[in-house]
């Protein structure tokens, strides 16, 4: 394999990490809707960190290696319409994804507050924070944008 072929393989692996993170957060969003105790929310933190790592590695890897490939490969240029579309969609996915994270971290922060106060039982306010419809909507939007990036990468409109 040439250097560029390695870069392409790592670019695709980064995309897989990104989508795997998005899928992981969907499962957590579904699971957290039934959780109303601080302890259970806090127990989710290591799984959230795995998701954050996957999305982080995926986001950085796709953009850096993707830009490298746009410059390195014959037949592609950074100003190609489908590449510009991918860059814009990548930025949108990142911005919306950050807002999704912020929406769900309210529940985590509340759980830690309650735990620090020694309140370990079911809490209605915590459950309401975990059932944020804004968070679901934002994650759905992130997923749609990521799906559009995948479509753009495969169909390469205008290429």
């Amino acid at each position: 394999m040439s250097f560029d072929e390695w870069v392409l393989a790592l670019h695709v692996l980064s995309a897989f990490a990104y989508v795997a993170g998005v899928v992981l957060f969907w499962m957590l969003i579904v699971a957290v809707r039934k959780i109303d105790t601080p302890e259970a929310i806090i127990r989710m933190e290591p799984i959230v960190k795995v998701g954050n790592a996957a999305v982080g590695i995926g986001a950085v890897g796709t953009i850096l290696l993707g830009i490298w490939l746009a410059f390195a490969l014959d037949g592609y240029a950074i100003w190609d319409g489908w590449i510009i579309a991918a860059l814009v969609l990548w930025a949108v996915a990142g911005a919306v994804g950050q807002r999704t994270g912020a929406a769900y971290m309210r529940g985590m922060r509340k759980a830690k507050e309650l735990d620090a106060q020694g309140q370990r039982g079911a809490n209605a306010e915590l459950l309401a924070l975990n059932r944020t419809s804004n968070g679901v909507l934002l994650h759905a939007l992130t997923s749609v944008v990521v799906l559009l990036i995948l479509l753009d990468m495969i169909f390469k409109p205008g290429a």
Partner: protein
Amino acid sequence: MTVLAAIRPDSWNFPLFLHVLGAMILVGGLLTGASSLAFARGDARFLRLGYWSLLAVSLPGWVLMRAGAEWVASREGWTKEGVPSPTWLDLGTLIADLGGVILLVSLVVGGVGVYRLRAGKGSGLLKATLVLSTVLLAAYLVAVWAMSGKPD
């Protein structure tokens, strides 16, 4: 400089999209399943979350990935008799099919584990599911590398 992502006929794009989307869902389900099982620390909620991630996400992802793979391979002419297939395709197919069998085994073992969990009999079998899903995750990442880098 070689053009790595050679121009494909448009008719290959949709089956390729289904193949890649399925593979991404499969890997996402495996990552969720393995993480939930690894960090559950005996909590039944997270053990079940891990198992259901494999059953409700990874399995449909595998079916979509495999169906898309056959479709795109037939479009590319690799399924015709007498046509030699490249190493990356053989490697990807082997890992996908062997991985499918291991996924089914892990689901059966995990299903019994969830049943035993309900009966209060411990989570030993779900630890086996964790090991299998972690091995699968690593194997499928190798498959992704092989399919995208296309080594000779």
